[in-house]
């Protein structure tokens, strides 16, 4: 049984202007020790997918359907008390902005131990020892003294380490990281990513990594899915996705990325803007921006189906296989030229 089995998950928000479909029919599984990457631009629904699984959307205006089975139990139907037992204990989350997700008026020691004291029947002393151990594990120097510091006394990278320590403190089986390095500098990002890799080896947790950065996904993920306008448009192993991308949006993303490993005079841009989810375009969501658009794309939503060669590589596009292979090869000839 997979650790997490999400089936046909949809989330909509009631707003003053109408219903916003933020996630439409997303299905995936996470196995023990696996790293799943979710890539997409802002507003593609990648964060909402995870917030829904964690039950963190505002109850008042959220409509959810589908299933999210955590070791067989549906997280979406759980009572708040039961969900609280899972959240922070079995599943924990790292948020994007370490500046705003720590409480500025409590010491980090207090914030770290809170999670243990909530879920475990231990004394404060034991909890503090565990907090110290974790601060050491994430590489905070002089943890003994720093545990009594306030968040403002830490730099951005250090705060993100505290967030990671907090997320790992109860030995979670699944760690959801929502853009954990976006607010950080490249050298700090490299520190945090290599930290996450080692911690995963040591603790054996599964990770869901949400990011807009294809580079981060390429470095860290085992499997990836690409989201566009509330839908999964392509899903594959990381090697397949980068060596045989099948969806025009994935091509667009890869082509619009300036990169260190190839010289491109002009970036291939995706024309237009991501659509409004309030009134999304009919048919394939990507058709108004797609350079390969056909008549059928405007009327019929393509199914997320396996590619003929690989049953584990899914994509959502009407284009015929021949064109896809040709176009993907053309793209790779440019971007992978120097990589060999």
């Amino acid at each position: 049984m997979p650790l997490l089995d999400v089936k046909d998950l949809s989330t909509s928000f009631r707003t003053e202007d109408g219903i916003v479909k933020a996630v439409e029919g997303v299905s995936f599984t996470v196995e023990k020790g696996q790293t799943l990457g979710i890539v997409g631009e802002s507003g593609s629904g990648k964060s909402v997918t995870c917030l829904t699984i964690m039950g963190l959307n505002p109850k008042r205006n959220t409509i959810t359907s589908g299933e999210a089975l955590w070791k067989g139990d549906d997280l979406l139907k759980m009572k708040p008390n039961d969900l609280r037992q899972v959240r922070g204990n079995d599943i924990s989350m790292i948020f994007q902005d370490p500046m705003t997700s720590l409480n500025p008026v409590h010491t980090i020691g207090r914030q770290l131990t809170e999670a243990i004291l909530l879920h475990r029947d231990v004394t404060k002393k034991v909890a503090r020892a565990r907090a110290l151990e974790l601060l050491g594990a994430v590489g905070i120097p002089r943890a003994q003294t720093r545990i009594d510091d306030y968040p403002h006394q830490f730099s951005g990278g250090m705060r993100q380490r505290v967030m990671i320590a907090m997320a790992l403190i109860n030995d979670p089986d699944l760690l959801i990281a929502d853009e954990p390095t976006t607010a950080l500098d490249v050298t700090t990002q490299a520190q945090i990513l290599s930290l996450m890799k080692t911690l995963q080896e040591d603790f054996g947790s599964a990770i869901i990594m949400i990011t807009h950065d294809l580079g981060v996904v390429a470095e860290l993920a085992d499997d990836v899915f690409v989201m566009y306008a509330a839908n999964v448009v392509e899903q594959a192993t990381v090697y397949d996705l980068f060596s045989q991308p099948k969806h025009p949006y994935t091509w667009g993303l890869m082509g619009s990325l300036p990169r260190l490993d190839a010289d491109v005079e002009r970036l291939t841009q995706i024309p237009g803007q991501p659509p409004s989810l309030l009134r999304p375009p009919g048919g394939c969501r990507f058709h108004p921006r797609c350079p390969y658009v056909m008549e059928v794309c405007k009327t019929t939503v393509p199914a997320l189906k396996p590619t003929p060669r690989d049953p584990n590589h899914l994509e959502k596009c009407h284009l015929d296989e021949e064109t896809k292979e040709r176009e993907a090869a053309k793209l790779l000839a440019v971007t992978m030229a120097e990589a060999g």
Partner: protein
Amino acid sequence: METAPAANPQTGDELLVVEGVRKYFPITRGIIFQKEIASVKAVDGVSFSVKPGETLGIVGESGCGKSTLARCIMKLLESTDGRITFEGRDITKLSRPAMRPIRREMTMIFQDPYASLNPRKRVGFIIGEPLEVHGLGSSNEIKRRVQELLEVVGLNPEHYNRFPHEFSGGQRQRIGVARALAVNPKLIVCDEPVSALDVSVQAQILNLLKDLQDDFGLTYIFIAHDLNVVRHISDRVMVMYLGKVVEVGSREVLYREPKHPYTGALLSAVPIANPELGRSRTPIVLEGDVPSPVNPPSACNFHPRCPRFVEGHCDVEDPPLYSFGNGHVAACHYALERWPMDADEIRRPGERTKSEHPEQPLPA
């Protein structure tokens, strides 16, 4: 003989020459009798030059002084020391009124397209305001020019009367570009113009900036923290660390053969969107954080984090910008011999750096 343009700028045809610019922000104590107790050395002796028509990229992590430097060049901040020469004219000490005509020649694009446009003004006014300020044309002419500019940056000229909130992030950044273009400047300082944008929109803006450069012969100073973006757009790249220049070189050379260990660490830290390539290398992970610019480390200010630190040398003697030919300079006593290097190799300090022109040691 070859000269290093970064440190030896007087060849005569530069658009902008910056020499030894420093910007210290005082830290004061006391309310009435404010006493300066220390200073933040945001920019600490930076020299470089920009030729007409080229793009100079400035990279560095947050807090390295790249934005402060941009503001000093634009004279939005008064620099503490040093000299800025624009088109052969020293503008360092010019008064605000005397500076005004020069502001027609150099404009700026800001990072945050949400904060840099006045939400209560219409787009037509925002783009036309520089024209009005400089008295360039009647209101009818300004309107025509604004509509032309909207067209140039890829917006619908009919959106003249809309407010900024009616546009998406990418479109707002296009408005920012149109405003910077309005007075036909020679130099545009772009301060992180694409870092707030999504990848697909970022590509649109980068392509637009390149097209405009070809069409209008613009010169850019392009500031960003994303090494991929800087590589894509720049002709020459300057790397900054803690207020100082650590390396300058042409785009090809600097990315192919970085000489400064910090540049090497930066390059190896960039995630590569290619799993096979990305996972086969071992990044050089720097330890610790960037030190405080209030009390920077002695001599080479990278030495506490540097993998090739040599005690008794790097922390004592400030490295000058050694020349490696063709304008490639790096401030390191023990420059990297080759590239790529992995984390273990880089730790074996090699020979002392020798300038290609040792008879002319370049000043820092």
